[in-house]
Every structure is written in structure tokens, then in C-alpha cells.
């Protein structure tokens, strides 16, 4: 089972990298981009034996303890949809 954890700075926290990317896009003429926030994304391969509930709990814990710093960052866990039926 594959999963992703997306981490980005909280909205209340200044993101100089996102601002710099946004300024570059503006310079290149992409004026319709209103704002850019830069983050990071982790792709994790999970043991197939895990249930979806177990996987979610594990990922939430890893995201909170390690992958994100909750003081400044927020995260979103995404699980690859499991194929059901035959």
C-alpha cells in the first residue's frame, strides 16, 4: 500500500521560498498565479498487511512526530485507494 504525507508551512507562517517562487512566476508573465506556498511531500510504502485504519493511525503519528513540526507546519495524509472486489 502506498501513502503520501504532504507537509506545508501553516498559513500564519511566512514562507519566503513560496514568495520567491511566486515573484519569479510573476516575472515570467504568469500573472494569474495569485500566491504560492512551498511544501514537501513524502511517499511511503506500507506493509500490505496493514488495514486502512491502522495505516492512517500510523501515518498520522509519523507525520505529527517526525515528518512535520506542528509548531510551524501542517500536514495531510493521503492513502492510495485500495482495490476491492475481484
Amino acid at each position: 500500500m502506498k501513502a503520501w504525507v504532504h507537509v506545508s508551512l501553516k498559513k500564519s507562517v511566512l514562507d519566503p521560498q513560496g514568495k520567491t517562487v511566486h515573484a519569479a512566476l510573476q516575472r515570467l508573465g504568469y500573472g494569474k498565479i495569485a500566491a504560492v506556498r512551498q511544501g514537501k511531500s513524502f511517499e511511503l510504502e506500507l506493509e500490505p498487511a496493514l488495514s486502512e485504519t491502522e495505516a492512517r493511525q500510523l501515518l498520522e503519528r509519523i507525520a505529527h512526530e517526525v515528518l512535520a513540526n506542528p509548531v510551524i507546519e501542517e500536514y495531510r495524509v493521503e492513502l492510495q485507494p485500495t482495490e476491492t472486489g475481484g
Partner: protein
Amino acid sequence: MRIGVIVFPGSNCDHDAFHAAALEPGLEPVWLWHESRDLAGVDAILIPGGFSYGDYLRTGAIARFSPILGSVIDFARGGGPVLGICNGFQILCESRLLPGALLPNAGSRFVCRPVRLRVENAATPFTHAYRRGQQILLPIAHGEGNYYCDAKTLAELEAENRVVFRYVNAAGEAAAGGNPNGSLANIAGIVNRAGNVVGMMPHPERAVESALGLADGAALFHSLALALALPAAGAAPAQGMPACR
């Protein structure tokens, strides 16, 4: 008194810190390796600057989970004096021994130059050889030194006099012009509530003798030597110190 200097892969101010501590009579620096849990009976711990574990994930994030940090956290919770400089400050925040976090500099640049600081709290084991309100010059060298915490934490830091150093301009004011990295309230260093764990972005170990151009950092190591010489130092250094002001 022995001061342990932690060495991570990627530490690059460890030798400077070791040298600065060795210059101070009464301080005997020893190395502490990141993979060890043994604190070798030290009386204080210094977490030096650099790029521990390449600063992968976030600055200080991997170092937080190193074997030695587990021992450092126990030592700090027991009242032992701990100083984190630059990357060391980032590691202390990541390990939650200090509140808040260090964000990328507001100007998106690595800033490497001397800065003017005001000593806001001269009652920590690392600052009591300074005067409260004293202005000093120390170098900074960081890309992520922009101190951030939520409004509630900031109010607590201010109310409890836990801002130790603040960036100031030439007039000695904590104004925007004196702020090199966008830090909240011009914060350059803070102390934990118990008063024994200090984190700071500026580098006192790079300013300890006239040959280096600046010497204002020497008093920090002198402070520690004095604090450790107090009778109460071994058991509970924080309680042996003058009351916070």
C-alpha cells in the same frame, strides 16, 4: 568542571566551541559523540552549530532523534545547564526543550556578519557575567534563524523574562532595522522556564579573543564557569542562580 561538546555528522562549530570552552579557566571541554548515550559525567552540555545530518527534513529534526539527544533531554529535565548555539538552538526547539521554531530568514538569504545584541536576561547560567541591558557584538551565520512561536508562547516568554538576547540597531533599539532575519520580537536567544536551557542563533564561540576580532562571547563561557562553581551547581544549577529578572 566538564562541559560536553556534542559532535553530529555535519557539526562545524564543534571545534570552535571546544576551543572557546578550553580558554575559560575552570572549564574542561570533552567530546560527546552523537551515537553514544553516555554523557561522560559532564556538568554542562553545549550543542554546537553546523548542519547536523545535513539538516535533512528540517534543521535539527534528525539530530533530535539521535541517541545522545535522549540523554541530553534527561540531563536538561534534571536541571543540568544546556546551551544550543545556531543549529544547537534549532535542535533544542525541535526536541521541545525550548518553545517555538527557527524558520528560513525573512530575506531568503544566508546572513553571515556581526550583529548587535542586547542582553535581556542576565540571570541564566550562561549570561550572568553580562549586565542586563548590556549591548554586545557577536557574529551570526545562518539561513534559518527567524525565530517563530505562537502569540501565547511569545506572551509567556516576555512575561517570564525568557528572552535572553535581542537583536538591536545601532541606537540599541529592538527595531526592524536591527533585525537580521525577521525574528519575532527581534528574538536572538531564549531560555526555558526552569532557567537551565538556553538557545541562541549568534555564535559566542566565534568571539572569545581579540585575535578573532570580537571578544564579547567570552563572558558567556565565564558565566558558565561561575555557575558551575556554585555549591548547588551539581544538583540543580538553575536553583543556585539569582532569581530571574
